[in-house]
């Protein structure tokens, strides 16, 4: 249960971000309505009181002002249109500064204590580096360790570190720092410690070699070490981790302003062969999607990730100053079903719901860029298999199954759907109308995240629920019968245990594949879609990571020419 909290925090952060945006836009609305009123009340009251020439004079003045404004606006538009091609023409030189617009803001910079993907996004690969690297396909590569050996029984991992590594403060980075960082993580139970399992010992063999011994094989060890648990910190450095960061990465944390921005500056003494391309990168947080889009269109930010709804891109794709693209991710929009609930413990009802849902339509309504997902494992995770044809959209079959379960027009089925308001009301409304077609009356309740936590996550008092489970490698949810799905399958639990104990990768994937298929066949839940991040950037920007860029954003090789 404890490792589940990790996945929830981003959502909570999203919520605070959302409420922040509400306040901001309310304030702006109030402001605009006030000015609007002031403007309109002027001529109106004058018109009523004044008369004759005086009145006419005012009208003429008003018309002149209006004409001037219109002409100014037209000129402004024409002028801005005309200047853009010349800007585009030059392939130019690399800019000193680039600004990136993001959505979820971290509350502080303390990556050891503060969970949430917003922190991973800023700090990992840019400021702190993990022992094992991770590439854009979510696979492990060389990191601080240039290579590693695994014993045949997969219980001893020997890591060979790069030589001559330094932290940004000049301290050397060697096996001592690695061992200290990992041991501290386990000892003090810092964020992500539970991803390192079966650890027997972590020790330095020499200055450039670290040996991790396991009590039993753990196939996710390398992947875990490529994330937060594998980060290496300077043992001797003293700094306020909430606002400062001293790591070994290609960037330095120059400033952090809560809910506003993070400024990164190139680490001129980076130990690696390739230093960061752009000198200063500012990450700016926009809680409000419209504000973000406007900032992007006006050129005050060069990259916007994510463009919240792909429908928003219609105004960007037509503009040749911008490039719009999608990246894969591990966000699974899971329609959770209470497998222990009175109605949904019946597999026929669950299957009927899966047949009743038209995933294509849901994806199309969001702009058609998300991927269909037929099971619990997304394409970037090990064990992925396209399971979308297990339950294709089929209204008649859904009705049949419901009839077999004892529900028809005379005895209609009523179900509750409860989910957090961060996901918007559209999902609920769509599901309501799709399930109506097979005779299920869906009662949708959109609530605060804290209410959802209480009702669904803790008390399991729900029929259906919708959550974006954005974590990677999170199959444990289906092997844990106490999780809020209440899905309890011995077969799946065994397969998952086998996958963790597997000594080679293909074996691990095979077990996970079988387990995922079983979960999907049992209709333990429905997977509405696999969210794909839409990123928009200035056409002068190259090398911006598209995959998984909401949890990992390596910026060192990004270039921005003008």
């Amino acid at each position, binding site marked *: 249960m404890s490792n589940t909290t990790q996945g929830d925090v981003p959502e909570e952060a999203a919520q605070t971000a959302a409420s922040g945006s*509400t306040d901001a836009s*309310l304030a702006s609305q109030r402001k605009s309505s006030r000015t609007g009123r002031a403007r309109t009340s002027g001529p109106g009251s004058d018109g009523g009181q004044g008369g004759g020439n005086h009145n006419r004079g005012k009208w003429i003045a008003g018309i002149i002002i209006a004409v001037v404004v219109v002409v100014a606006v037209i000129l402004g538009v024409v002028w801005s249109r005309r200047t853009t091609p010349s800007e585009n023409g030059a392939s130019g030189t690399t800019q000193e500064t680039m600004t990136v617009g993001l959505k979820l803001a971290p509350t502080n910079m303390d990556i050891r204590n503060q969970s949430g993907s917003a922190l991973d996004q800023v700090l990992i690969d840019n400021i702190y580096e993990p022992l094992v690297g991770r590439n854009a396909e979510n696979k492990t590569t060389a990191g601080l360790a240039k290579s590693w050996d695994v014993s045949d029984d997969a219980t001893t991992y020997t890591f060979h570190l790069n030589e001559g590594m330094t932290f940004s403060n000049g301290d050397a980075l060697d096996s001592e720092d690695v061992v200290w960082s990992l041991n501290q993580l386990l000892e003090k139970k810092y964020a992500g410690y539970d991803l390192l399992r079966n650890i027997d010992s972590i020790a330095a063999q020499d200055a450039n070699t670290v040996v991790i011994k396991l009590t039993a094989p753990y196939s996710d060890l390398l992947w875990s070490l490529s994330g937060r648990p594998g980060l290496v910190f300077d043992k001797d450095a003293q700094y306020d981790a909430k606002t400062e960061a001293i790591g070994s990465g290609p960037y330095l944390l120059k400033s952090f302003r809560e809910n506003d921005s993070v400024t990164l500056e190139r680490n001129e003494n980076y130990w690696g062969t390739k230093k960061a391309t752009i000198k200063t990168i500012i990450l700016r947080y926009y809680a409000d999607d419209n504000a973000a*889009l406007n900032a992007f269109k006006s050129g005050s930010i060069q990259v916007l990730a994510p463009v919240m709804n792909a429908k928003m891109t219609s*105004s960007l794709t037509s503009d040749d100053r911008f490039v719009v693209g999608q990246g894969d991710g591990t966000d699974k929009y899971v329609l959770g079903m209470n497998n222990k609930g009175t109605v949904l413990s019946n597999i026929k009802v669950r299957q009927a719901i899966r047949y009743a849902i038209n995933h294509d339509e849901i994806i*199309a*309504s969001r702009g058609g860029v998300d991927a269909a997902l037929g099971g619990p494992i997304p394409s970037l995770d090990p064990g992925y298999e396209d399971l979308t044809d297990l339950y294709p959209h089929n209204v008649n079959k859904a009705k049949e199954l419901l009839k077999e379960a004892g529900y028809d027009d005379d005895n209609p089925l009523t179900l509750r759907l409860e989910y957090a308001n961060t996901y918007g*009301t559209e999902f*609920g409304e769509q599901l309501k109308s799709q399930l109506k077609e097979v005779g299920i009356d869906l009662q949708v*309740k959109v609530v605060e995240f804290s209410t959802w936590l209480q009702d669904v996550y803790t008390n399991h008092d729900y029929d259906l629920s919708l959550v974006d489970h954005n974590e990677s490698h999170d199959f444990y949810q289906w092997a844990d019968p106490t999780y809020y799905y209440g899905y309890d399958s011995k077969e799946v639990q065994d397969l998952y245990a086998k996958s963790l104990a597997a000594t080679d990768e293909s074996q691990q994937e095979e077990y996970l594949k079988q387990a995922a298929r079983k979960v999907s066949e049992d209709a333990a839940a429905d997977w509405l879609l696999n969210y794909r991040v839409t990123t928009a950037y200035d056409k002068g920007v190259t090398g911006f990571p598209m995959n998984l860029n909401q949890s990992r954003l390596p910026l060192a090789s990004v270039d921005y020419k003008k």
Partner: protein
Amino acid sequence: MKGFRSRLRRALSKIGGTFGYIWHRGEGRFALIVLGIWLLVCIVAAFWTPESLDTSDGYNTWASPSPAHPLGTDGTGRDMLSWLMAGSGTELQIVVATCMLAALIGIVFISFTLARSALASEIAVVVTDTLLSIPIVLIALILAVPLGASLTVIIIACGVSYGLNLARIAKPQAVLAANSRYVEAARAAGSSRGRAFFRHVLPNVIPVMSVQLSICAGTAILAEAGLTYLGIGVPAGTASWGASLSASASFISIFPLTVVWPGALITIVVVALNLFGDSLRRAVDPVVNSQLRAAAEEVERGSGK
């Protein structure tokens, strides 16, 4: 029985006269026409909308106006026109319930301020003033904790706030009436305090109250839109103008038209309600309404004879 019928006739002709006076002026006519259409749409939408409210077309979201969808579709692919029509019923419910609650609370507090005991009346005044200083949004946020997003939140928050306001505004009128000679006479003739309040004081307050309530009605619609935007108003799945507006608001820079429809609707109806309140005040205020003055003089002359 005969007395009742004649009284009813008199009351009806009085109301008719008031409406006639309102209709007489341009802004009053506008208000009456808009409010009439609103009621008509509410009745129609209760039985029929161009498209069923359960229909949604995910392949056709945020569509521009077309013959099939005269006002386009929203983010779920539902017909905007149908949902706005259905929303007018929800608004009417909110407005009616809010006004009734406000009137009730107003009357209760006025009766307290007129209480025999000076302490009770003092307490009522202090309580009114104190509660008035709490913003509607805060009341709504507190109520939303146990109730969740629901119509009840809007109705109670607005009803309480406007009711107290009402009590504050109508109080001088009520005190004036309560201290008048005719109330004194009625009391001397043996009528109870309660009877005196309902027969003599309340009728004096009703004109002020009805004007205030029609303004409350406009504000209630605005409050619905605002609170729904904050996520504590109308629950998901219920049609309302505020819900349509807040759903579209996040896409204002891409699909501005979808914000225009509910926005314009709210503006027009709220303006109409406010103008109606203004006209009503004119109609029932003898200082402004010369017809009323003439009638009063006639009565006076008649009684003088």
